[in-house]
């Protein structure tokens, strides 16, 4: 398969931000991804839902090669990232990632958390990196925490800083790996609010989440995964309200009852 017929770039149609085809991934005997086809369009917000162990986090982590897929293709803006000659570091610097457990650098202040990759990877000057950091801290509403250390922030604040850190690299797209799952319930809202604002600004987002309300309100498309395959996908009002498949219905019922 040549790149020209996988990117769908005929007739000036835009190249999707992420296009995954026939993706397989195993951990030992555990076949986690069993042939995934998946697209995220430019400026699209896609929420991936599904029971734990369905492979949704693994799929997300394959997109910036934190996990190496065994088989299949992953095209980021039309370029095959599984190519052995691909510059993984450059690729990753264009894809923002937000983790379930925040993963802020505890030995660095908030400002340094936001500037270190700008300086070391983007080679920005101290002044420019600081300027970008201030701008992004303001976006997540934490300008007053610029000199704080991560340990002195609440979970919700840490996750907002983590989002600002990813944004400071001016990424073309953002990946969210269960960004609110490690938070106390009362702190979930502030993080979702930041993500909502990001979506309304037109950021391309792939979000693995258990927040059905967020998926319903913000997603352009919802993808339901179970046992390593995409069971069904579509607009949130269809997938979350009137799904075609039994497995989707059962999952939604469990989540609603939970």
């Amino acid at each position, binding site marked *: 398969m040549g790149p020209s017929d996988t990117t769908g770039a005929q007739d000036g149609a835009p190249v999707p931000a992420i296009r995954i085809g026939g993706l397989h991934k195993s951990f030992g005997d555990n076949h986690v991804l069993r042939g995934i086809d998946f697209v995220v369009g430019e400026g699209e917000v896609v929420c991936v839902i599904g029971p734990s162990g369905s492979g949704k986090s693994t799929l997300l982590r394959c997109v910036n090669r934190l996990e190496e897929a065994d088989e299949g293709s992953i095209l980021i803006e039309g370029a095959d990232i599984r190519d052995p000659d691909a510059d993984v570091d450059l690729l990753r610097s264009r894809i923002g990632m937000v*983790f379930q457990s925040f993963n802020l650098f505890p030995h660095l202040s908030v400002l340094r958390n936001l500037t270190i990759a700008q300086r070391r*990877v983007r080679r920005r000057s101290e002044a420019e990196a600081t300027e970008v950091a201030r701008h992004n801290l303001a976006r997540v509403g934490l300008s007053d925490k610029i000199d704080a250390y991560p*340990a002195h922030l609440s979970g919700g604040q840490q996750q907002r800083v983590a989002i600002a850190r990813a944004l400071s690299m001016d990424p073309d797209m953002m990946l969210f790996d269960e960004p609110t799952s490690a938070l106390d319930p009362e702190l979930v809202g502030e993080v979702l609010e930041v993500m909502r604002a990001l979506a309304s600004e037109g950021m391309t987002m792939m979000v693995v989440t258990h927040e059905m309300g967020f998926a319903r309100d913000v997603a352009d498309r919802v993808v339901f995964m179970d046992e390593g395959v995409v069971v069904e996908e579509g607009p949130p009002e269809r997938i979350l309200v009137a799904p075609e498949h039994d497995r989707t219905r059962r999952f939604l019922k469990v989540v609603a009852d939970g």
Partner: protein
Amino acid sequence: MTRRRRQRLVRGLLYASAVAVVVALAAVADVDLLRRNFLDREIAATMFPDVLLIAARNTIVYTALAFTFGLALGLVLALMRLSSIGPYRWFATVYIEVFRGLPALLTIFLVGFGIPIAFQVRWPILVQITLGLGIVAAAYMAETIRAGIEAVPRGQMEAARSLGMSRGRAMASIIIPQGFRIIVPPLTNELVLLIKDTSLLFVLGTTPATKELTKFGRDILTARANATPLIVVGAVYLLITIPLTQLVAVLERRNARAR
């Protein structure tokens, strides 16, 4: 008898017997003889100021040199041990096992006498000291540093890589600084051990100007047939090591607060 009263009685008996032993020893020992042989003020006075200006200074300089060398080499070895490249790992493993397994004295001998015999070169004494002690220190520190690096959560490397940092850059900017914070206490322990191990350096044949504390004390002990120099030198060691361990306790508490 209640449990508590019995405990109190047992403890009282222990204290009483300890005091009895001390009193008995004092009665048997010739206190005057002890004082003349261990606490001779006149001999102690002749040791100053050289015990501080030469011997203690040398001990500190040798320790600092060996520690710096050992830390640098230990870091390289730790990274080699964690490498995905087999030969690097094997080399580091063999190095660590060999130099932790050999007595430090033997390694110092090997550097001081083996290298001149093998290569027909005689290195300056400071180089011999740095190598002799540093080679051993590196083996111990490599394992400590490795443990520190491994104690940094995996998510830290993932976050750094997800921002586009190379593995090496992530190690240098994110992982190693955090690893070192974790190992400040064990590293200080290595430093204190190293201070004491400088007492082995006499085998390299130190001159009056290059004597460290133990050699300095022993030479006076031999010349005067009196043990007082050992007491003085011992006190100087404690003067160096105790503030050091206290300083680290303070740093550790501050670190714990910052986390």
